[in-house]
C-alpha cells in the first residue's frame, strides 16, 4: 500500500520538499556542494603547493598524468591537480563575492523603487537601465588596467590580490540591475498583497512590513537569480583571466586556461582540468538555479 505524505507547511519547507523531487536541481546542488567542499577542504589534501614549479626544475613541465602528478603538470611546471583545487576557492570567492555585492545594491535599489513608486521608481529604473547597457567586459578590462596603475605606491597596493578584488567588485557593481528589476517587480506585486494590506490595517510599521512581510516573500526568485549570477560571475572572471588581464598572483581556472591553451595539442590535461572545473561549477549553479525555480514557483513548470 502506497503512503503519500502530505507536503509540509511553510514556503521554505514546501520549496525544499519540491526541490528534492527535482533531479536536475539535486544534481546541481551536489555539484555545487562538491565545489564548495573542494574549496574548503581541498587545499588540505592538495598534493603540492599551488606555486610549486619544481616540476619545471626537474624537466617535467607539461608532463602527462602519472603517479607523481595525478593530473599531470602544466607549462609552468605546476601540478595541475593542485592548481585546480586551489582555483575552487578563487572561483567561489569571485562568484559569491560578486553576487553579494550585486544583491545588496539590487535589493536596495529595486526595493525602494518598488515600494515607494512614482518619480523615485522612474528615476531609479532609468538609472538601472543605464547600468544594463554599459559594456561590462570592456569596463572591467579598462578599470583593472587603470586601477592597477593608480594604486602603485599607495597603501591600497598592500591589499593582497587587489586585481582579483577589483574584478569581484566590478562584477558586483555591474550585475545588480537584474536583481533590482526582479526585486522591484516582486515588491510591486507584494505591496498590494492581502497579507500586506492586513499588516497595514493592524498598524504594522512600514519598516516591519518591508523586512518581515515583503522581503522574505520576495526572496525566492532573487535566490534563483543570484544562483544563476554566481555561475555568470565565475565565467566572467575566467574570461578576464583568459585575456591575460587577471591577477598574476591569484590562482584561477581562467588563468590556467590562458597559460596553457597554446599547448592544448601537446598537453591537453593542463586545459581540460580547469575547463572541466569551470564547466562543473557553472553547470552546478545553473542546475541549482533551475531546481530552485521549480521549487519556489512550481506553476512555472506546470
Amino acid at each position, binding site marked *: 500500500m502506497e503512503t503519500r505524505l502530505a507536503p509540509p507547511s511553510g514556503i521554505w519547507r514546501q520549496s525544499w520538499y519540491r526541490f528534492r523531487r527535482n533531479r536536475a536541481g539535486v544534481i546541481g546542488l551536489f555539484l555545487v556542494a562538491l565545489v564548495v567542499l573542494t*574549496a*574548503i*577542504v581541498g*587545499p*588540505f589534501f592538495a598534493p603540492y603547493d599551488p*606555486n610549486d*614549479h619544481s616540476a*619545471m*626544475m626537474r*624537466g617535467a*613541465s*607539461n608532463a602527462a598524468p602519472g603517479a607523481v602528478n595525478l593530473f599531470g603538470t602544466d*607549462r*609552468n*611546471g605546476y601540478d595541475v591537480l593542485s592548481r585546480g583545487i*586551489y582555483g575552487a*576557492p*578563487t572561483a*567561489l*570567492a569571485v562568484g559569491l*563575492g560578486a553576487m553579494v555585492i550585486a544583491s545588496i545594491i539590487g535589493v536596495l535599489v529595486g526595493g525602494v523603487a518598488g515600494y515607494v513608486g512614482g518619480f523615485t521608481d522612474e528615476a531609479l529604473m532609468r538609472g538601472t537601465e543605464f547600468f544594463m547597457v554599459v559594456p561590462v567586459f570592456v569596463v572591467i578590462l579598462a578599470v583593472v*588596467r587603470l586601477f*592597477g*596603475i593608480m594604486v*602603485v*605606491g599607495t597603501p591600497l*597596493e598592500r591589499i*593582497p*590580490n587587489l586585481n*582579483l*578584488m577589483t574584478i569581484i567588485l566590478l562584477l558586483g557593481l555591474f550585475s545588480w540591475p537584474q536583481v533590482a528589476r526582479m526585486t522591484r517587480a516582486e515588491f510591486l506585486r507584494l505591496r498590494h498583497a492581502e497579507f500586506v494590506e492586513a499588516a497595514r490595517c493592524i498598524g504594522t510599521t512600514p519598516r516591519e512590513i518591508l523586512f518581515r512581510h515583503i522581503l522574505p516573500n520576495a526572496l525566492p526568485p532573487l535566490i534563483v537569480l543570484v544562483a544563476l549570477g554566481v555561475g555568470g560571475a565565475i565565467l566572467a572572471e575566467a574570461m578576464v583571466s583568459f585575456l*591575460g*588581464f*587577471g591577477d*598574476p*598572483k*591569484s590562482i584561477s581556472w581562467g588563468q590556467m586556461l*590562458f*597559460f596553457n*591553451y*597554446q*599547448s*592544448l*595539442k*601537446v598537453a591537453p590535461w593542463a586545459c581540460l582540468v580547469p575547463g572541466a572545473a569551470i564547466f562543473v561549477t557553472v553547470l552546478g549553479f545553473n542546475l541549482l538555479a533551475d531546481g530552485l525555480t521549480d521549487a519556489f514557483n512550481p506553476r512555472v513548470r506546470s
Partner: protein
Amino acid sequence: MNRRNILQASLATALTAVTGQAKAAAPFFKLYMMIPNNQPARMVWGTLAAAQMQQIGIDVVSSFVPFTVISPRRGKGDGKTHVDGGWDCYLERYLYSSIKPSPYANFGSSEMPPTGQNFYYVDDKEIDRSLHAVDSSLNEADRMKAYQAFEKRWYDIQPMTILFYPQDVVAVNPKLSGFDATTYTPTFYPQPEHWTIEGGGTNATAAFASWQPPSSLIPMYSIGYSDSNAFGPAYNRLYEYKSWQDKTLVPALASGHTMSADGRHWVVTLRQGVKWHSGEEFTAADVKFTWDVMLNKAYGSSLQAVCARVFGDEKAYKVTGKYEITVDLQAYSLDFLNSVMGAFAILPEHAYKDIKPEALRSHTASTWLGTYTVKTSDGKSFTARGAVGTGPWIPTGFDPSRKAYGYKRNEAYWKPHTGNVKTYYLVNINGTDAVLSALKAGEIDAHDPMYDIGPVVSTIDPKWGKVLTFDSYKWQHICYNLKHPVFGVGTETPLGKSDPSRAAEAAAYIRQAISHAMPRDRIVSEIAGGYGSPGTVPMAWSAPEYDHDLLKPIAYDLDLAREYMKKAGYVY
C-alpha cells in the same frame, strides 16, 4: 573535527583565497615587473622569473601589460621608478638594428631616451670606453678586442639579465619556396619578391602573419618587428644584406662608396634610374632629406641620438651631385655604414617634405588608412594609400575589418622580382594556435618568428606546414631601470647606505644575484621547446663577435644568488 574547526578551516581557506598565501619573511625590497601580455611563453618565463626573485628575498609585483603601457614609461627618459610613473623592470626580446653588433646605440651613455634607445640608462665608463672603441675602430682586430672588453664588463656587472638566445622557428606553406630569412628588424622582413608558390601561376597571392599591429609605419619612428614587417617591403635602404646566410652588406639604393683612410671622409654614389612609387626619380636630395628629418628633434625620431652621434649635425653631409652625397664625419663610426646606411630606410622628399613634423606620425603615410595625393616634379599626381617608397611592394592600404595590409607588386622596381607573387598581404593574427590554424587552412603562407611555435612543432603536419629554423641573432632579457636606487645605482642598499662609494657595486651584486636565480637551461628546454641557448650578454649567440671562450654559462645557483645578496648587505 567539530563544527568550530570546520568553520575555522573554511574561514581560513576563504581568506587565503582572497588574500593570498602568507609570506615567510619580510622581503628586502619591492620591484615592479612588467610582463608584456602579447606572448604566453614570455608570460610563463616572466612568472617563473618573478617567483625565482622572490626566492632570494625580493618582493616582485608583476603585472601583465601590453607593450603600449611599457613604451611610454621607458621612453620618458627621466629615470623615474615605477612608483613615480617610470619603470623598474620588464621583459623584452631584443636585437641590434644591424647584423654587425652596434651596442653603443643601446647601451652608450649618450643615447638615453627620449631621443635615444638606451632605455635602461646603462651608464658605465668601461662599457662606454669599449663601445666607443667598437664604434670607432677601423681595424677589425681592435674592434674584436673592444667587443670582448664590452662582453667581459657586461658579464661582470650584469646590467640586464640575459635569459636566453632564442632560435627562430617558422612554419611555412610547403608549396612556398624562397623563404630563406627570418625577420630581423629593421633589416630583414618578409621579402615576398623572392617567394614562389607552387601552382600559383604567374599571378600568385601570398600572406604573412605578424602578431602585433604596428604603431607607426614611418621607418624612423620605430625599428620594432611589427612595424618593419609592414613598412619594410615598401622602402629601401642605401645598403642591404646579401642574404640571411651571407650577412654581408651590399649596395641597394647606393651603388657604392669611397672612404678615406681615417674613415672620416665618405663619398656615397647612388643608384641611377630608381623611381619612387609615385614615379618621381630617386636622387641625393632624398638621402639628405632623410638624414635631415632624423636629426631634427622636432620629428621626434627614436633614431635621432644615433644620427646625432654619427653626424654631429647637418653640416656633416652635402649633396655633391644628383646621385652623389659627400659625408665628413668628425670621427669614424661603425654605425654610419651599418646603421645609418645599412639599416635606416630612405624617405621620399617630394612626398613627405610638406608634412609638418608634429603631423607625420598620424598622417596616412604612417597609418596607411585612407589616401593622400603626392605631386611629382613633372606635374603629375599620385594617389598614395600608405608609404611612398622605392621598395618592391606598393602599399594598397590597411583594411581594418581584415586586419590586413595590402601590397601590389612594384613592376618598376629597380631589381627584378624572382618569385611569382603579385599580390601580398600582411595580416595581424594573435596567438600561436591561431596562426597555425590559419596556415593549416591555407589562409597564410608564413609567419613571424614571434609566435614561438617551438614547443608545438610536433603538432605540425608536413602536409600543411614546413618547419624552418634560423639562428635568430636576438636575445630575451629582463631589463632594469639602472637609475633605480636599489638595483640600479645601489644608494638604497644596505651596503650603499653604509658606504656610498660602494653603492654601484652593491647594485651589481643584486643584479648578479638575480642572474644566478634564473634557471636558464630550464627556460630553454621547458618553455622554449629546446629552441635556444642560455644567455649571458647582449650579443648574438651565433655571431662571430660572441666570445665563447670568455662567456661561460651563468650557473643557476640559489645559494650563490643569496651570497650575492649578502654581499649587497642583506641579511637572511
